[in-house]
């Protein structure tokens, strides 16, 4: 009996070895290493992007891969810890990663991106909206699949002014992280370019502040009331903030950020109305671009769940940008891939054409679908292409 078991085991092992032999005989795969948060507090933010990236990789592999080579993914969980991120990057590099994909946040992903660049490999963020995730903050081999956070603010300022006739704004900034400060900064810069637009008041709070009574009272006391309140924040604290504003009986329209996308927090503010924010693409199946809806549908089919929020699409875009660049460079050599990304005057993606320049590895112009929430229902009501030009110093928020 024992002998038979051993015999079967040996046969299976032999078969396994034979199988792996045939794999080796094929072209070496292109390896994308994800040094990213799969657990810990940040994981929820990366999860959708990783899944969408895997979806894009499946599609590419079904078409035969890049340059005739299949794409393989390997992972190193950074546990939402930056020091671990650097270690994770080293780990995937050691296992032969051709490119390292990092978190959708600059501060979280920078350590891993630095290690990748130091090793002479491409670091691609699956959606950091910070210009520093590029030449300025990492190195010449770092890219991100997002646009600068300032553009979100600019889009809302311009759209509100042009389409809604909003002139006066109350600016409420969540100071816990850099991203929200950048969005409000973008709103500020754009508002200055619009004749007659005015910021009538400013305030700050911190995500997670238990009470915003002081801020809400100051808004209530404004006479005349502002046309719109721009609140630069993110969930979960953002939901609580919006709730407190509405609970105080303030019916003024509210503008916010892409980070407030998703309907999971709407229970906190029953029947929320007059709430608008920009998105990269709609994950509710009503995006003006058929390609985006198609990806959302495939995502649902593969994972049996909707993308958690709009940032997931940036993971899909990151893979396609990298793949297109490798194809154009005809190589996975990081310098050639970077050159291909920089020289391109428009790589088509599901979110529209992307272009990078020698010193700007983030999008400086973007076409946002504008999402509205009325009676707790999401719907894309418009699309806005940002107009305000931002200098690199403005994107670094160092122009003041």
């Amino acid at each position: 009996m024992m002998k038979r078991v051993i015999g079967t085991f040996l046969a299976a092992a032999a078969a396994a070895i034979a199988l792996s032999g045939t794999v080796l005989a094929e072209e070496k795969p292109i390896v994308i290493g994800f040094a990213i948060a799969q657990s810990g507090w940040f994981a929820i933010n990366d999860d959708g992007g990783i899944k969408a990236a895997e979806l894009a990789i499946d599609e590419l592999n079904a078409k035969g891969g890049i340059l005739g080579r299949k794409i393989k993914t390997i992972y190193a969980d950074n546990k939402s810890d930056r020091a671990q991120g650097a270690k994770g990057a080293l780990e995937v590099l050691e296992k032969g990663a051709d490119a390292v994909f990092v978190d959708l946040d600059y501060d979280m992903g920078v350590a891993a991106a630095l290690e990748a660049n130091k090793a002479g490999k491409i670091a691609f963020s699956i959606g950091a909206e910070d210009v520093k995730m590029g030449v300025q903050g990492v190195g010449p081999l770092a890219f991100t699949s997002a646009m600068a956070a300032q553009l979100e603010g600019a889009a809302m300022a311009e759209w509100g002014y042009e389409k809604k006739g909003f002139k006066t704004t109350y600016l409420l900034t969540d100071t816990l992280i850099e991203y929200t400060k950048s969005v409000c900064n973008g709103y500020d810069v754009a508002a200055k370019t619009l004749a007659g637009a005015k910021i009538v008041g400013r305030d700050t709070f911190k995500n997670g502040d238990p009470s915003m009574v002081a801020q809400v009272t100051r808004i209530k006391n404004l006479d005349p009331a502002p046309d719109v309140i721009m609140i630069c924040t993110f969930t979960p604290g953002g939901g609580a903030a919006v709730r407190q504003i509405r609970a105080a009986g303030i019916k003024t329209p509210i503008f916010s950020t892409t980070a407030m996308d998703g309907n999971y927090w709407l229970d906190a503010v029953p029947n929320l109305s007059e709430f608008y924010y920009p998105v990269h693409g709609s994950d509710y199946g009503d995006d003006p671009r058929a390609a985006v809806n198609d990806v959302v549908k495939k995502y649902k089919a593969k994972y049996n769940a909707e993308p958690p929020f709009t940032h997931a699409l940036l993971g899909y875009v990151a893979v396609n940008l990298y793949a297109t660049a490798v194809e154009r460079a005809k190589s996975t050599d990081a310098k050639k891939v970077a050159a291909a990304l920089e020289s391109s005057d428009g790589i088509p993606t599901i979110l529209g054409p992307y272009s990078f320049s020698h010193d700007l590895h983030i999008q400086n112009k973007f076409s946002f679908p504008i999402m509205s929430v009325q009676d707790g229902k999401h719907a894309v009501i418009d699309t806005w292409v940002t107009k305000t030009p931002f200098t690199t110093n403005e994107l670094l928020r160092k122009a003041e």
Partner: protein
Amino acid sequence: MMTDRFSIAKCLARNASPLVLCGAVALIVIGTALANDAALDRTVTEALVRIVYVVGLYIFVGNSGVISFGHTAFMAIGAYTTAWQDCCSTTKSLFMPALPNVLLQANVPPPLATIVSGVVASIFAGVVGLAIVRLSGIGASIATFAVLAIVNVTFSNWDSVTAGTSTLVGIPNYTDHWIALLWAVIAIFAAHFYQTSRFGLSLRVSREDEVAAKASGVSIFRQRLIAFVISAFFVGVSGALYAHFLGTISVDAFYIDISLLTLAMLVVGGMNSLSGAVVGVAAISLLIEVLRQSEHGFALGSLTVSAPRGTQEIGLGVAMLVMLIFRRNGIAGNQEIGERLSRFLAPQLQRSSKLTEDF
């Protein structure tokens, strides 16, 4: 001749604990250097930096018996002082425009920057310590935590000097395993010499019995302050080493997580002995690494067996619980590792060395 050999033995015996500890740590580092594995190297270097932190923490907590939740504030100060001195010469004026011109132009060599960072942390500790060490017991602990919260909030919002909540990039990668080892050795010996000195002994007496200590003429305030300042120096240095290790720093890296982790290391190792501090870092670092690897998966032939994600955090919690339930005095259990060795080398020292251990 006989006396010479005897005095060498006596000297070895007196310093047996730090020698054994440093020897063990050095062996691990040499092993790592030979293994030539980048990820392992980073793990070991990080653990060495934590030894500097935890031994620094031990100098105050272990000897005074007052638990500090706030030493991470000194680490933050050490790390930022380093960044002010030798970070990113090209972008410094962009990210930290309000720094004085001297610092904006400065490019202090990393070894000097590390020492200066420790000194600055010490000075800060000296000032806040004036108030904190007057408090007793839990009051002092809460006050240390308040200091940490104040430093954290100040650094997160002082945009023109600390770049606020954003990450500072471009600190030279100067900390390798040898540098970290050097500082770990310095910290271990400093802690040893301190705790066997008149000051250390006085503070230990006050830990065991405040009234008796006062009756014997020990100024608890002064002794605690001295320990607090020395302790802050090493924790500040660990911040500098960490900044030089990672190359990037941000305020939120110096808050609750690292405070609890280092405190856990000290508790698991054994709060009342230097060996406990070092062993605690080694044990917890090893445990974290093993659990992390098991989450990653071990290759068993063609099979990969992996533990579910989050095992590391749960495993760490369970280990601490087990420790607290079954071995409250930590792994080292209030003993110093070299104790037996020193008795063997110089039996006549037994009484006096026993005295220092039992305080």
